[in-house]
């Protein structure tokens, strides 16, 4: 069990660094989604299932959906600008 | 359990419920509900103040069926109820003062949401003042942050949105640090209740294993709360946040929100970590150092401002430096001077913001000094209010600012010699700097120019003039009858620990 926890924690650190250094916004958000999924697995390993469900449903689920909608709205406005300029 | 003892709990729950209800009411009804709620709370808390003043000792109110370390708990003493009464009074006056501008700035559909924010902010202020449990304080600090951000951004011009974004980023940084410190403190002491933490912290002797974590906890708490209350190095969000929001929300933000965080810091000083542990850890010297620089830098950057709202915002950076200087002195007199300055600064700062909105209303809604010239003649009551506020900031006798400066000087005299020297010198220099930009502002609003702005038969709104008169009376009361207030603070501090 020890090794599995260490692998997950290292994965978390790699995800956090990847989020801060990657250029494309969409990949950053997908990396962040995997970050919160790994976090909810860690809650299970830490024997607190309440947190696992809440982190999975509220943290990974709704936050990522909101990030995607924001990105789509910004992409939509960007295309409108290009149409106006073109 | 006397009925009056339930009033603090009832006032918090009433605020939360009326915040929820006024989200479905129309703008006008939400305004009436909010005004009546704030005045009712003022009355309830003043009754609690008299009750606690008579019984001469603070009592704890158990939230729910389970005693303190298991359930939540409020602790009500003279100091807390005095702060609560004062906060309700200032909020009522700034709401009435800025009422016309609220209905002009905020979209017609969204005025009731403005009053939702005001109600929930008042409930979080009262909860922060009364609570005796650290995690409850953190949850209500979060409500306070979101409500303050909403008050800044509700006036939807570009500036206030950018100011709200900057405010949110800095505040979230602050609350992240506070939560980190809180979880370390929970790990060291095993409790979230303030008095139990103090017993556990007292057992951490210097040189034991938990000595370094305790120092880091104190540092994180002080930095987190300094960021949120805009102490000098972390004040970059303050001028935009106060400069571009509606007058009544900038009045509430500058006088109530940052003061609640300072009051929470004083509560942590006395009730969570203990004053002597704080002094051993030299945190008071660090606060004194930053406060002194803040007093100078705040006034210096205010001098080169030519926008009246940003000038008042920078002056509140300097005044927050005064309060932290009082805390940094480390003595009981210093703390009492800081608490009195919280009251006097709240009174004069909100008056300045509301008067400035009155002045800019008669000079074509511009905040620039060139247009504000001569506005003192056009809007008489706003001119008088601005002058009284400016003179109290500078520290002219008979005004509130003067008495708090006297108490600061007294506290600095019997502090340690190095602090006394630096304190007195900086007090003098910053008074001169205050005089430079405030007297210049008063002179410029009374030089007769800009006749083209004169609207024949212009009369300021009734609520505006009533609020102004009450502000002026409050300032004089704080200036002249400050002794009973200082006795209340002294008694409150004795039962505070």
């Amino acid at each position: 069990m020890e090794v599995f926890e260490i692998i997950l924690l290292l994965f978390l650190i790699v995800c956090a660094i990847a989020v801060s250094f990657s250029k494309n916004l969409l990949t950053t958000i997908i990396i962040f989604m995997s970050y919160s999924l790994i976090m909810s697995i860690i809650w299970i390993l830490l024997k607190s299932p309440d947190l696992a469900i809440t982190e999975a449903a509220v943290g990974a689920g709704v936050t990522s959906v909101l990030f995607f909608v924001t990105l789509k709205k910004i992409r939509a406005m960007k295309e409108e600008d290009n149409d106006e300029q073109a | 359990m006397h009925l009056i003892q339930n009033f603090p709990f009832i006032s918090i729950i009433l605020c939360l419920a009326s915040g929820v209800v006024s989200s479905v009411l129309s703008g006008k009804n939400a305004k009436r509900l909010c005004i009546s709620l704030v005045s009712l709370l003022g009355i309830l808390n003043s009754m609690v103040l008299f009750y606690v003043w008579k019984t001469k000792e603070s009592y704890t109110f158990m939230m729910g069926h389970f005693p303190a370390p298991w359930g939540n708990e409020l602790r009500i003493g003279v100091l807390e109820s005095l702060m609560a009464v004062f906060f309700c009074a200032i909020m009522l006056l700034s709401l009435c003062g800025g009422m016309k501008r609220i209905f002009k700035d905020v979209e017609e559909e969204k005025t009731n949401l403005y009053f939702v924010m005001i109600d929930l902010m008042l409930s979080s202020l009262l909860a922060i003042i009364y609570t005796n449990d650290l995690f409850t304080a953190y949850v209500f600090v979060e409500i306070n942050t979101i409500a303050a951000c909403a008050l800044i951004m509700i006036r939807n011009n570009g500036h206030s949105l950018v100011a709200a974004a900057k405010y949110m980023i800095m505040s979230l940084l602050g609350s992240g640090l506070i939560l980190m410190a809180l979880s370390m403190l929970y790990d060291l002491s095993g409790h979230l209740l303030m008095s139990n933490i103090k017993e556990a912290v007292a057992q951490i002797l210097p040189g034991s294993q938990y000595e370094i974590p305790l120092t880091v906890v104190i540092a994180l708490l002080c930095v987190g709360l300094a960021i949120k209350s805009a102490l000098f190095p972390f004040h970059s969000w303050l001028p935009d946040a106060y400069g571009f929001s509606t007058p009544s929300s900038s009045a509430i933000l500058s006088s109530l929100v940052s003061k609640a965080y300072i009051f929470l810091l004083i509560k942590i000083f006395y009730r969570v970590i203990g004053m002597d542990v704080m002094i051993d850890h030299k945190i008071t010297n660090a606060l004194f150092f930053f406060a002194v620089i803040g007093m100078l830098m705040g006034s210096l950057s205010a001098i080169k401002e030519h926008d009246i709202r940003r000038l008042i915002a920078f002056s509140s950076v300097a005044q927050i430096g005064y309060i932290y200087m009082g805390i940094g002195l480390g003595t009981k007199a210093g703390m009492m001077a800081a608490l009195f300055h919280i009251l006097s600064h709240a009174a004069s700062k909100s008056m300045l913001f509301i008067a400035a909105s009155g002045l800019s209303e008669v000079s074509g809604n511009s905040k620039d000094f060139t247009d504000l010239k001569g506005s003192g003649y056009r809007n008489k009551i706003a001119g008088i209010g601005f002058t009284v506020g400016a003179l109290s900031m500078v520290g002219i006798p008979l005004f509130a600012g003067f008495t708090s400066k006297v108490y600061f000087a007294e506290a600095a005299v019997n502090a340690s010699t190095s602090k006394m020297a630096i304190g007195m010198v900086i007090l003098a220099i910053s008074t001169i700097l205050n005089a430079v930009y405030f007297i210049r502002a008063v002179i410029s609003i009374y030089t007769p120019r800009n006749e083209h702005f004169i609207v024949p038969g212009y009369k300021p709104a009734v609520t505006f003039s009533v609020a102004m008169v009450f502000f002026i009376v409050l300032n004089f009361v704080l200036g002249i009858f400050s002794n009973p207030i200082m006795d209340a603070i002294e008694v409150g501090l004795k039962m505070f620990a």
Partner: protein
Amino acid sequence: MGGNLLTNFYEAVAVILFGIGFTTLLLHRNMIKKILGFNIMDTAIYLFLAVKGYITGGMAPILTNGVEEQAYYINPVPSGLVLTGIVVSVSVTALMLALTIRLYRRYHTLDIDKMSMLAKKEDL
């Protein structure tokens, strides 16, 4: 350096994540990156807080086959606090994202410095 660094490796990782989130929040000028940095910082603090309650060999704090001794279960207090915290960070993220959309609709940029410059320019 105290002896517990290797035993407390969960808290060490939480602190490293806190540092990364803290710097992402401070360093990047793009608003979406700042909000992601804030989320990472907050999740790291909740990991730091929830790990306090873990007891090796303890079971999840739900009554199993009628056993009511403290030694069998982990400490439920930190999970209660973190449950509150997760919902706080979701609501603050939603607020910041709404602010970002509104700012982008007005200034057509996500860079907060450019936004404040455009806001100043609007004044003239």
